[in-house]
Structure formats: C-alpha cells, structure tokens
C-alpha cells in the first residue's frame, strides 16, 4: 500500500482548546476514506491543517512522502491536494465558466500570463467545458454565482475541487444542504473518480458514509478514537456512545 497523505503527531490548539491532539493519520493511495466524529471534534480543523489554511502548533504533514508542513496553500494545490469547504467558498461575482476556468488555468500554470486571451487557449477551454458538462452546470454557466440557488452553488463548490484534478481530494460535508434524492448522485460522482485518486470524506450523513467508505477514522476531542473498516467502526461501542447513537448500521 502506498501512502498519499500522512500526518505525524499533528497538534493544533486555539488558546486553551486543543482542536487537534497528536494525530497520526494515514491516507492510502486510492483510498475511499471517511473521517467522522462529533461536532467540534476537530475534523474541519484537521482539513485546514492538511491544506495549509491553519499552521499546526506542532507535528508534520507529508504528501506523497514529502514534508509539506511549511509549504504554502497554493503550492499544495499545485502538488495535487484539493478540497471543498464546509461552508461554500465561491467567487460570487464570477460566472461558473469563469470560476472553473480560473481553477483550470492555475492548474495549467497559466496564471502568470499577462497578455494571453483566455478564449484563445484551447486546452483551457476544453478542460473547463469538460468539468461544466460533468457537473451539469452548462445551462447556468453564464449566470452570476451569487444569484444561483444553494444547491447549484454546492455543486460548483465541488466542481471547483474536481477542476484542480487532484490526486488527493478532501471533502468537508459535501452533502450539507443537498436534498436526499441528489446526495447519491453526488457521491456517485466522487466514487467515479479515477482509482488512483485518494479521497477523504467528512460527513454526518451515515448512509452516505457507510455506502462510500472502505475505511473510517473517528475523531473525538481532537484525537483519533477509532479507525478501521466500516463494520468494525460501526460495532465499536465507544464510537456508538460518542457519535453514532442508535444509528442502525452494522
């Protein structure tokens, strides 16, 4: 098993609160991994540490064997690490075309070109179109993102992460606010990513988690409470007490 992403003794505290507490975590290459845990357990904080939004208090993050603890956020994206946000982070005044084109152009290294016209760049156009088509955003591609309904915005949020063609994808509650009927479709898209792409999913919808994940880590109060395959985790009494309650799985 080769490793996509790994943390060593990772810690983060805010004042007196320890949000990430000595976490050693491994995301295998091609994994379909879920991270669950009670509210405030530190899941979002963990993702923020992995992507460089927050600096760890101590510990180390490695991406494909390279230490990236001190690497800037954008450079991590350049190395194939992309994410979605729990609360949508969009370019409100742009259209979906522009937003996807932006992500694509940065991935293709075009961002430093001051004089090139966007529409003259065939590769950029083709890849942007591909993402828009895949997420069925083509019918609204020229509307301002800020005026779109929430569900569409959520799709753009996820499409933007896909457009970065990551090798490691971190999804923070992607299904929040998405109706039951469309959640499966969304997760099917995630599951349909190439085999070598590693995915870490944070979700409170246990139906989705157990359907999707082949491995689950449970975080409580900033530290890893349990880790294993779905059945193991579902049966773990500590996990049931802390998180799942009487949820009928396993």
């Amino acid at each position: 098993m080769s490793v996509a992403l790994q943390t060593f003794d990772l810690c983060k505290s805010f004042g007196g609160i320890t949000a990430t507490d000595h976490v050693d975590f491994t995301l295998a290459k091609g994994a379909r991994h879920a991270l669950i845990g009670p509210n405030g357990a530190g899941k979002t904080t963990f993702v923020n540490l992995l992507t460089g939004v927050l600096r760890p208090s101590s510990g180390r993050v490695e991406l494909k064997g390279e230490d990236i603890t001190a690497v800037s956020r954008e450079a991590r994206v350049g190395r194939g690490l992309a994410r979605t946000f729990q609360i949508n982070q969009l370019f409100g005044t742009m259209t979906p075309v522009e937003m996807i084109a932006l992500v694509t152009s940065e991935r293709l290294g075009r961002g430093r070109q001051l004089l090139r016209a966007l529409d003259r760049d065939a590769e950029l156009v083709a890849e942007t179109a591909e993402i828009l088509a895949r997420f069925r955003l083509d019918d609204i591609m020229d509307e301002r993102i800020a005026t779109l309904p929430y569900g569409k915005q959520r799709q753009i949020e996820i499409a933007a992460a896909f457009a970065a063609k990551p090798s490691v994808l971190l999804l923070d509650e992607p299904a929040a606010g998405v109706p039951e009927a469309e959640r499966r479709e969304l997760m099917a898209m995630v599951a349909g990513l190439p085999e070598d792409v590693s995915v870490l999913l944070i979700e409170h919808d246990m139906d989705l988690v157990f359907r999707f994940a082949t491995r689950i880590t449970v975080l409580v109060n900033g530290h890893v409470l349990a880790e294993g395959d779905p059945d193991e985790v579902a049966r773990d009494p500590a996990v049931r007490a802390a998180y799942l309650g009487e949820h009928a799985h396993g």
Partner: protein
Amino acid sequence: MSEGSIEARVQRSLYAARRWHPAEIMFWLLAVAAFFLLPRQLLILNEIAILGLFAVSLDLILGYAGIVSLGHAAFFGFGAYAAGLFAKHASADPLAGLAVGMGAAGLLGLLTSPLILRGSDLTRLMVTLGVALILGELANSLGWLTGGADGLQGIMMGSVLGLFEFDIFGKVAYLYSLAVLFVLFVLARRIVGSPFGLSLRAIRDNPLRASASGVPLHWRLVAVYTLAAAYAGAAGALLAQTTQFVSLDVLAFHRSADLMLVLIIGGAGYLYGGLIGAVAFKLLQDVIASFTPQYWMFWIGLFLVLFVLGGRELIHGGIKAVVGRVARLGRRSPT
C-alpha cells in the same frame, strides 16, 4: 467544435469579456473628436486624460484585486518627480521621461507592496496613506533635489517624437496624453482579460478559495501593485511633462482622496469607470467652480450624497440605455 457544443459556448463566454463593444469604440472616437470639437477645453481635457489614466491605475488594484488605497498619489507623485528630474537633468525627450516615471514608480510599488499584503481594508487604506504622507514629507525635506515647497522648476520639455512641440493651447499636450492613455488602457484591458486578470478577480472575491485553487496570492498582488504603481507613475509623468512643473501637491492626500471619488463615481472593476468618473468629476468641479468659486464644494458634496442615495441607479440606467442603443446601431451598421 460544433456551434452548440459546450466547448464552443465556453469559448464564446470567455471571448465575450474581451470583445470590443461598439460603445467602447464610440467612447474613444469621442475622445478624439473632442480635440476638434472643443478647442477651448483642451487643457482641461488633458487634465481629464491624466486623471483618467491615474484612475485606471487605481481600478487595477481596487476594482480587480480588491486592494483599497488612500495613498495612490505616492506613485503619481513619484512618477511626476522622476520624470521632472529626468527632464531637468538628463534628457528632455518626453517618451524617455515617461518610461523613467513609470519605471521609478513601478519600483516604488514593488518595494512597498509587502505592506499591503496583510490586513483589512481599513489597515490598507491607512498604510497606503501613511506611505504617501511620508513620501510627501520626504519630498518637502529634500529641498535641494525636489525644490521643496517651492516646487520643481525649470523643466523644459522637448518635442514629442522630435516632431510636436508642446503649445500653449494644449493641443499637443492633450493628444500626447490621450495617446499614452489609450495605449496603456488597451494594455490594461488585455491584462485584465488574461488568466492573470482572472486570478486577480478571484483574490478579490474570495482569497481563501483563491489560494485553495492554487493562486499564489502574494505574488499576484505584488505584481498587480507594481503594475498599477507604474501606471500611476505614467500619469504623474504626463502631468509633469505637460505642465512642466512639479509641486508637493502631487503627493498630497487630497489627490488620493479625489481619485477614490472619481473611481467610485464611475464604478470600479471595468476600467472605463475611472475614465467616466474623471470626465464627470472634473467637468462638474470646473463648471460649478466657475459659477461659485467660493462654495463649489457644497454642490460637489451634494452631488456625491445624492449620487450614493439613489442617483447612481438613475445615471447608470441612463448610460445603459444609451449604450444599448449604440450597441444596436453598431450591430446593424456592418450589415
């Protein structure tokens, strides 16, 4: 690629942003026509062109990258002094002076850009303001070089391209400034439509997402700040060259503040806002001040207040209607 394919539509959408709109062509034709139609107003037209270029510079950072500045006069003034000193001590050639003004201001922009990378809008406002104020004090105390409070005198400009001598009617001055404005404007237009320009808008809209999309915030901001500084330097150089004088007020606070008003009046984020704002602001000020040289500020103030309170919608609605009509004309005429 078929007409209806998504790819074709994406391309068309991306092209739409950089297509020359008939109203734009009209705008520039009018600017040239003004030379012939308003021979008595060439001096103020020249000032408008310079202010317009200065406002385009602010738009690059404010409208596109979301960096507010209350000290943009620092670069304007630096460019003006650089061009003035160059003309006085090195060469009277306007274009060389322009390049020197831009280069100097650009360099200053590069050096001060680390200051604007962090902090809220308010912090940026005050830091930029502080830089401009310090520069103003510096220019005041370096009297041996800048002429201090008396201003830099004895600038003699050569002729543009060795052909056109600056005249007292402001003919050459206006055409020269307009030409420089046009060239730099087209360049700016090109830049904001490039992948680089798109990444600036991303930073303005949502820096968190921008960095999560792989945009190196710092470097992009440094780049655009330097570029905008060079543009402001160009505007300053034009002022120094066409008035053949530089005084401390090129660095003054009110110059930055007026500039901000100009851009807000015209609207930030589409480059023409600065130009339209410059026309509106200067003309308004000139007309009102000629009626009431003592109390023109009151009327300008009233205008600003009413403009924000609801006039903007009216005016923009009007402009849109006109532009729409022009667009329709433009579309019809080629056929």
